[in-house]
């Protein structure tokens, strides 16, 4: 009897907190900030648990599944052949698309693409292209005739804040997992997959890219999104935090801590130099973490 | 609604070959069952239909199969082949040129038009030795006011998908009513693309069966021009073809299945060729397409309510029975309509 009464009590207090959270979201969060803790028990500057699995999509040439908290991104690369542009006969191309399917968030409805999707798409391709991580020359097959077009599609499976960070992590992981198929040039001038099984059938067509199966990735970029609210900096916000405290700043640093992007689109709070410096310090820390996570994922893959 | 009114509303239903035979039981049954409670259904198109249906719903399932099919289903199929080009509705279905074949089918107050158009195309790379067939259905706003604008889209899509499933067979082509290989002209280069368009002009239930019948009739009415292939082309080039204006090849439609929809009303009874009224009371409906050999070539189910597996098995066997007679009736109607068309031309 006593126990049940206690249980009731607990429930009611829980309800109260929940109601407070819904009715006064800002005050709810600020009360937490005063205690230097966040509703999910994280310290302000700490990112959520991050995991990375390579090779999640069997039908793709390179793929990765990245999870930051419950934000989940699935990235996959499919390689296709194209005729390179005249100005750059020795370069391949990458096409990056970020998708927010209807499953990922209650805001997105089928047929009406989310507002954020094309923006994140653009940011991702800007970041990856300008970071110099990839050498597009490595994607060349036959100079002036054929080159790879790498289609990178990133699907958001669960949207809970920091979409860009998770998408970028999934994208770079997919590139590091990318295994370029061995191809040969057939008699019609088309590139076809070189298959070992059909011996005797086409030994005359030698593979054109046997030594170029993996891309060399230089200076991999990693991102961290922070919320600036008054004098607080909250690293790696959840969707709830993003909707309540609207000033976001996304910093992308590469492995040598060079600044690839510092993206702050408006927001009620102004970013002063000390705050930006603090954010950059947090990102530096995060780059280290993500680098280890990526390396571990690659190691796991190689062991398998 | 009195019976006089009803008759004036649907004058087309009276041309039944053997309706005299059934008329007799009708009177008897009318007398027998007037005092029985009605099983969740209201009055139907015509008297014969009404009594027999009612009689079936009351008691004997077995009796329903035999009588219902002869009266309600076969009695109401009236086919007239070839829509006159001046017909305003033909503008909808034949926007570019004269169709190679067309047919109009009435089943009671349900009226549909099907047209077949053949065009030269390229076979798909996955099946170089086969032609292609596409089926699309449009629901005209004349059939129901809610089809205005995009309102009919959902039903159109559902009907198109069901027809494709029932008439085109499996992936390998087994069970398909149309022999795709016969549409091939030059392997991997040229083939016939058949565009089958269905138009629902008036809707009073059982549209799918009517569309199936119309397509079968339209296909048998279809003449595909003879094609002469200009020889001596290199294997890389697209061969030149000469389409004849005079010689036509008749399409073989013996393999085209007929579709029979059984609508389940209430707990135990299912009825063939349901009207809109009956469909409004349905819990679920099963459409089965059956070919001349009695094989099942496709099946879909509509309506949310679940069915016991044994009921489905039962329904399939009923559908097979119904289909046999429908097939015969349809063939003779088609032949009659063709003959009539030849006479008039």
């Amino acid at each position: 009897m006593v126990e049940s009464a206690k249980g009731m009590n607990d429930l009611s207090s829980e309800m109260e907190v929940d109601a407070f959270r819904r009715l006064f979201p800002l005050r709810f969060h600020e009360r937490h900030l005063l205690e230097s803790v966040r509703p999910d028990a994280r310290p302000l500057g700490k990112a959520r648990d991050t995991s990375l699995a390579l090779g999640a999509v069997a039908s793709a040439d390179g793929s990765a599944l990245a999870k930051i908290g419950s934000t989940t991104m699935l990235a996959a690369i499919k390689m296709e052949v194209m005729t390179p542009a005249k100005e750059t006969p020795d370069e391949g191309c990458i096409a990056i698309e970020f998708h927010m399917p209807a499953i990922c968030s209650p805001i997105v409805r089928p047929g009406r693409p989310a507002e954020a999707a094309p923006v994140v798409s653009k940011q991702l391709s800007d970041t990856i292209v300008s970071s110099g991580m990839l050498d597009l020359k490595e994607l060349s097959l036959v100079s002036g005739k054929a080159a790879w077009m790498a289609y990178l599609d990133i699907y958001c499976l669960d949207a809970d804040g920091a979409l860009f960070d998770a998408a970028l992590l999934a994208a770079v992981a997919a590139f590091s997992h990318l295994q370029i198929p061995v191809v040969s040039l057939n008699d019609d001038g088309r590139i076809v997959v070189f298959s070992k099984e059909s011996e005797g059938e086409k030994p005359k067509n030698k593979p054109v890219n046997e030594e170029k199966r993996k891309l060399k990735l230089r200076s991999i970029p990693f991102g961290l999104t922070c919320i600036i609210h008054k004098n607080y900096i909250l690293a790696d916000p959840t969707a709830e935090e993003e909707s309540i405290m609207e000033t976001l700043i996304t910093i992308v640093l590469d492995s040598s801590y060079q600044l690839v992007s510092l993206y702050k689109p408006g927001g009620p709070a102004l970013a002063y130099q000390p705050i930006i410096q603090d954010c950059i310090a947090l990102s530096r820390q995060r780059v280290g973490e993500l680098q280890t996570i990526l390396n571990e994922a690659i190691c796991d893959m190689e062991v398998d | 609604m009195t019976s006089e009114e009803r008759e004036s509303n649907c004058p087309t239903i009276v041309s039944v070959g053997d309706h005299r035979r059934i008329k007799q039981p009708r009177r008897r049954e009318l007398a027998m069952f007037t005092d029985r409670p009605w099983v969740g259904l209201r009055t139907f198109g015509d008297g014969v239909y009404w009594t027999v249906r009612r009689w079936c719903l009351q008691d004997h399932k077995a009796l329903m199969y035999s009588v219902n099919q002869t009266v309600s289903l076969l009695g109401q199929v009236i086919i007239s082949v070839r829509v006159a080009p001046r017909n305003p509705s033909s503008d909808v279905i034949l926007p570019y040129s004269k169709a190679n074949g067309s047919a109009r089918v009435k089943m009671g107050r349900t009226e549909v038009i099907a047209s077949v158009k053949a065009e030269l195309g390229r076979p798909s790379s996955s099946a170089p030795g086969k032609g292609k067939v596409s089926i699309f259905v449009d629901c005209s706003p004349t059939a129901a006011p809610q089809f205005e604008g995009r309102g009919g889209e959902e039903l159109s899509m559902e009907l198109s998908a069901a027809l494709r499933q029932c008439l085109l067979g499996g992936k390998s082509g087994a069970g398909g009513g149309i022999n795709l290989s016969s549409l091939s002209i030059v392997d991997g280069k040229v083939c016939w693309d058949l565009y089958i368009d269905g138009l629902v002009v008036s809707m009073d239930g059982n549209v799918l069966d009517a569309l199936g019948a119309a397509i079968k009739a339209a296909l048998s009415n279809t003449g595909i021009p003879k094609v002469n292939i200009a020889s001596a082309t290199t294997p890389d080039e697209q061969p030149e073809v000469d389409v004849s204006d005079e010689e036509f090849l008749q399409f073989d439609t013996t393999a085209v299945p007929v579709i029979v929809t059984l609508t389940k009303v209430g707990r135990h009874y299912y009825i063939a060729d349901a009207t809109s009224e009956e469909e409004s009371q349905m819990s679920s409906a099963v459409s089965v397409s059956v070919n001349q050999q009695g094989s099942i070539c496709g099946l879909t189910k509509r309506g949310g309510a679940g069915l016991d597996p044994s009921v489905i098995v039962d329904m399939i066997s009923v559908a097979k029975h119904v289909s046999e007679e429908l097939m015969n009736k349809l063939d003779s109607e088609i032949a009659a309509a063709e003959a009539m068309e030849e006479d008039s031309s």
Partner: protein
Amino acid sequence: MAAKAGTTPATYSPSPTTNNKKKNRTPLFSDVDWVRPDGRDFHQCRPAFLRTGAVNAASGSAYAEFGNTKVIVSIFGPRESKKAMMYSDIGRLNCNVSYTTFATPVRSQVSDNKDISSQLHKSLEGAIMLNTFPKTTVDVFALVLESGGCDLPVIISCASLALADAGIMMYDLVAAVSVSCIGKNLVIDPISEEENHQDGNLMTTCLPSRNEVTQLTITGEWSTPKIHEAMELCLDACSKLGKIMRSCLKESASTSQE
């Protein structure tokens, strides 16, 4: 410096053309005795991996993996119906199925699939107590991550699990299984390669504990005894799948309680 946007040159995949020719040359499934590409028995299903709660942002969700077929289904609602919708005293069900661009071996841009969406709707509506959420809509959104055959049955089973996870009232879970007819053999739970060569296909979705069939589709040419055999196979597999789904739900319920 400037990103190469706007100009997307025509591309082609290096693999499919060669593969197709190869397949046509070797008649894989023509014999009476052949081995399935993944070494299963004809009447053996792929191992099923099911998990609820894959998407936190949704009110309920599930992930299903049957061999290479991988599907996520999210449920949203019951929530406000679209404004254009008229008043309805029973709830509405809105289904949508989309594919990722990398779901199929050849990259495809088309991701919307109305046909499959309506099939999903038809299979589920009979199992859901729509009267429990009047005036509102439950959205069932499915994303096929990888298509490895039997997509629709996997989506249906996964969707019913997600509905259960979302706490939507149902009469029973919906289990779906399909059977391919290849030559003289009936092959349960076919992979894409088998589906591409099938003569006919029979898919059953049923409520296992009520022994009710909510949807049945047949394509290809079938004799009546074959249909009986295939349906029996499907129903048997459905009841087994139903048990797996049930245990998956129990498991997630017990872990959430801890």
